[in-house]
């Protein structure tokens, strides 16, 4: 169907009181205020009725445009389903329910204020609490007074529709792990601080003045304070060391655990049997510094999610047609053979056959290409696309989890842990390190026993183990990587965790997806072929495309930038076909070949064609190709210097020659790749011993991103949906990818250098330890100094090098 786009010309100066957008299409007045659409006016009415207009005082024009908001009343019917309610709520008893919604529209102080005053709108709501950064609101409500469905309707009525998707229903992941680390850090810090105070007198000769009673008390107090450190704060290290040993490997935590146990048990012996002061304060300090390093390494991006699969994108419910009736049912209850209705902007939930209507499917989240694909009746439509235009009727062919795209997630690649293959630098040297240390310790023991001094031998043995406890060694990695993580984060390259950096440095094969990754919708290349366009026709075309939101119209519009715009009468947009208008009584058409009845042959391939006709005469056509992002050729050639580069594309290979000319022979190109082919391609590369880095953007790359050693998702807006990956990169910084890869390598070099530094400390320590000359004071001074100096060294070097390469604005 068509709808006239021009109803009433509004004065250009007025902006909507609610959303602040210019009132272009219509202008509504209410209580002396101007609104751009009925939706915005409605929100204002609801708020003013309930005396909540303070909303408009806190921030200027705080609302969001309600133009595109769906008005359908039954779309939340699935929220009456008891199963769904139970899965969505956080807590429920007879009286009240608690639920947390994600509301992407939260963007200003007014949003917070309104959502926390929901109880003024409906007495069933008890309270609301907003987490601004995470864009979440927790609402407590009495389910007997307001149902969950009515609550969601209320929220969407005031313009804050929560996003509820399949992942919310499928599982509730609560991560409490990083909290534990903070508890441990607090305990270690508390004990360390107090132990230092009690040990301080020992460091000075004045201790003698205090008398024996004090000394003993202080030592016993130290033992007491060391207990929580040893039995609580250090538990992660025992566990990790044990797991590593059980797998017949030695990771960095093994020598640390040996050091901790030796420190603790020798100190007990020293204090209780020998009446000396022990090394408990060193133990406390060691754990405190180690845990700080661990904490620093964890940098999380609250607004980003690295683990999303298709479920966080699929809706919870679909409209099922039973005869004439429309039922809104949960997606999980959808069966093969059901007939469903999909409306404008709704998602195709499963592979189905088109029964009725004009389907124009936007697969931009799947493939990265945003020009809608036109489907005819009887054709199979794959799940994951978004319908643009009028409602269509579909017959379900496969269950949502078994489709062409979603079947990817049933692959083994999603079952296994991703950390295969690439070992971290620290773990690689720790095996040799542990052996060497044990060797030296036993040699020292043997030497002194041979000399007949057994007690000195034991002292030397334990001293070596204590002094070489790789505190500084273990800290160089987390601090360097943690810092690198932050530098990259500032450069809009967000990594899931610090281990990814080390893996990134080791990759030797880079695989790019084409559409949406190397090409960008905004960088389209538009060419015109046919009869030369007069200035008048250009202005007509411009007038037409400027009234359309279709992706191709936008591209032609930007191609005609600087051209005068005619305002035309009766512009009609026929969804999926094209635009029609009248100019001086002549019919002007812009659209597909079918639409303008073009008989032109010998057309170029590899792009979209938009034909232009006047009174049925086709004058010419626009040839629109997806354009490459800026500097892509340089990126590829720079990366190809020390890595092999591959390109995977789901498209036909008509662009092969063009790309070959652009990139040269360094690029290995593969076309016609299905999502599963991409996964298999990566698997083959891995099996051949390559260390792969996959750079992709859409859901169809999800398998390849998962299978690769490091998967990076490129996105034009980082808070948008992106498939599960190890890193998310803002598309605007893709030209820095080679620099980031280099920096990852640099950070490995920095780790190596700081290893060198801490080895120096260790050898000095060992020199004294083998002679049995190590005292608690010596330990208490050397260990913190070595740790702190390593931390300072790594932090300064990473920051300085990042600054020098232009990845950071200032050094600190």
């Amino acid at each position, binding site marked *: 169907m068509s709808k006239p786009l021009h109803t009433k010309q509004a004065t250009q100066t007025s902006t909507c009181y609610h959303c602040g957008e210019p009132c272009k299409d219509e202008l509504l007045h209410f209580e002396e205020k101007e609104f751009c659409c009925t939706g915005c006016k409605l929100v204002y009415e609801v708020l003013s009725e309930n005396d909540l207009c303070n909303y408009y005082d806190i921030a200027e024009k705080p609302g969001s445009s309600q133009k595109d908001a769906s008005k359908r009343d039954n779309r939340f019917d699935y929220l009456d389903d008891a199963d769904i309610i139970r899965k969505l709520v956080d807590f429920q008893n007879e009286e009240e329910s608690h639920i947390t919604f994600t509301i992407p529209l939260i963007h200003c102080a007014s949003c*917070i204020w309104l959502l926390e005053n929901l109880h003024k709108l409906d007495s069933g709501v008890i309270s609301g609490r907003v987490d601004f950064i995470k864009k979440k609101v927790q609402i407590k409500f009495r389910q007997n007074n307001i149902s969950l469905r009515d609550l969601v309707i209320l929220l969407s009525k005031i313009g804050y529709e929560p996003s509820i998707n399949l992942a919310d229903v499928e599982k509730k992941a609560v991560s409490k792990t990083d909290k534990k680390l903070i508890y441990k850090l*607090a305990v270690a810090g508390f004990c360390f601080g107090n132990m230092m105070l009690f040990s301080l007198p020992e460091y000075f000769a004045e201790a003698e003045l205090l*008398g024996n009673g004090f000394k003993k008390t202080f030592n016993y*107090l130290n033992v007491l304070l060391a207990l929580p450190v040893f039995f609580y704060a250090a538990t992660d290290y025992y566990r990790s060391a044990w797991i590593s040993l059980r797998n017949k490997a030695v990771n960095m935590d093994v020598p640390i655990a040996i050091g901790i146990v030796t420190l603790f048990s020798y100190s007990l012996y020293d204090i209780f049997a020998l009446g000396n002061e022990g090394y408990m304060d060193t133990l406390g300090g060691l754990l405190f510094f180690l845990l700080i390093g661990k904490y620093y390494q964890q940098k999380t991006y609250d607004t980003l999610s690295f683990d999303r699969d298709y479920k966080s994108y699929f809706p919870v419910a679909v409209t099922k047609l039973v005869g004439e009736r429309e039922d809104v049912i949960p997606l999980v209850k959808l069966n093969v053979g059901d007939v469903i209705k999909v409306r404008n902007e709704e998602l195709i939930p499963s592979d189905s056959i088109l029964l009725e209507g004009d389907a124009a499917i936007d697969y931009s989240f799947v493939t990265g290409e945003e020009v809608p694909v036109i489907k005819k009746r009887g054709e199979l439509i794959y799940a994951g696309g978004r319908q643009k235009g009028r409602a269509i009727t579909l017959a379900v062919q496969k269950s949502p989890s078994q489709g062409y795209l979603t079947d990817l997630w049933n692959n083994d690649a999603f079952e296994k842990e991703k950390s295969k293959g690439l070992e971290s630098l620290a773990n690689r040297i720790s095996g040799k390190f542990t052996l060497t240390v044990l060797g030296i310790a036993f040699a020292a023991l043997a030497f002194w026993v041979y000399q007949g001094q057994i007690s000195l031998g034991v002292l030397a043995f334990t001293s070596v183990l204590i002094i070489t406890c790789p505190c500084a060694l273990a800290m160089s990695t987390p601090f360097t990587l943690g810092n690198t993580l932050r530098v990259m984060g500032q450069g809009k390259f967000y990594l899931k965790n610090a281990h990814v950096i080390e893996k990134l440095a080791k990759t030797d094969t880079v695989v790019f997806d084409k559409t949406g990754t190397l090409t960008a919708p905004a960088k389209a290349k538009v060419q015109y072929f046919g009869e030369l366009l007069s200035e008048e026709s250009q202005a007509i075309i411009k007038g037409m495309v400027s009234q359309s939101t279709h992706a191709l119209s936008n591209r032609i519009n930007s191609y005609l930038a600087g051209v005068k715009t005619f305002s035309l009468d009766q512009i009609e947009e026929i969804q999926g076909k094209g635009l029609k208008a009248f100019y001086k009584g002549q019919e002007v058409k812009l659209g597909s070949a079918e639409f303008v009845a073009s008989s032109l042959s010998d057309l170029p391939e590899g792009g979209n064609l938009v034909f232009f006709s006047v009174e049925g005469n086709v004058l010419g056509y626009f040839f629109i190709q997806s354009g490459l992002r800026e500097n892509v050729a340089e990126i590829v050639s720079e990366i190809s210097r020390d890595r092999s580069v591959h390109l995977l594309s789901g498209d036909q290979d008509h662009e092969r020659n063009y790309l070959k000319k652009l990139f040269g022979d360094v690029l290995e190109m593969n076309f016609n790749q299905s999502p599963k082919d991409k996964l298999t391609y990566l698997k083959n590369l891995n099996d051949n011993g390559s260390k792969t880095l996959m750079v992709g953007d859409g859901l169809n790359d999800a398998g390849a991103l998962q299978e690769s050693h490091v998967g990076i998702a490129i996105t034009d807006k980082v808070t948008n949906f992106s498939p599960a990956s190890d890193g998310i990169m803002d598309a605007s910084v893709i030209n820095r990818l080679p620099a980031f890869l280099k920096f990852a390598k640099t950070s490995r070099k920095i780790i190596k250098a700081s290893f060198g530094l801490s080895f120096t400390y260790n050898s000095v320590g060992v020199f004294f330890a083998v002679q049995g000359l190590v005292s608690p004071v010596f330990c208490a001074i050397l260990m913190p100094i070595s740790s702190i100096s390593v931390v300072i060294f790594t932090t300064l070097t990473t920051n300085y090098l990042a600054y020098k390469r232009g990845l950071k604005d200032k050094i600190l």
Partner: protein
Amino acid sequence: MEVIFVLIAISLILAGSFLFLFFRAMKDGQFEDSHTPAIRILFENQQSKKKKIPTPKSK
């Protein structure tokens, strides 16, 4: 000098209670959202101001 024993006990109890308070704050989620409270604190002021001066129109 024996008074030091008392002082030690007091200092440990004090420090321990700080640790306990920190744990409790962690549990209550005080550190989970550090941004919203900073905005929230400004709301009540605006409301009370509004009661005295009827609707300060933005220019």
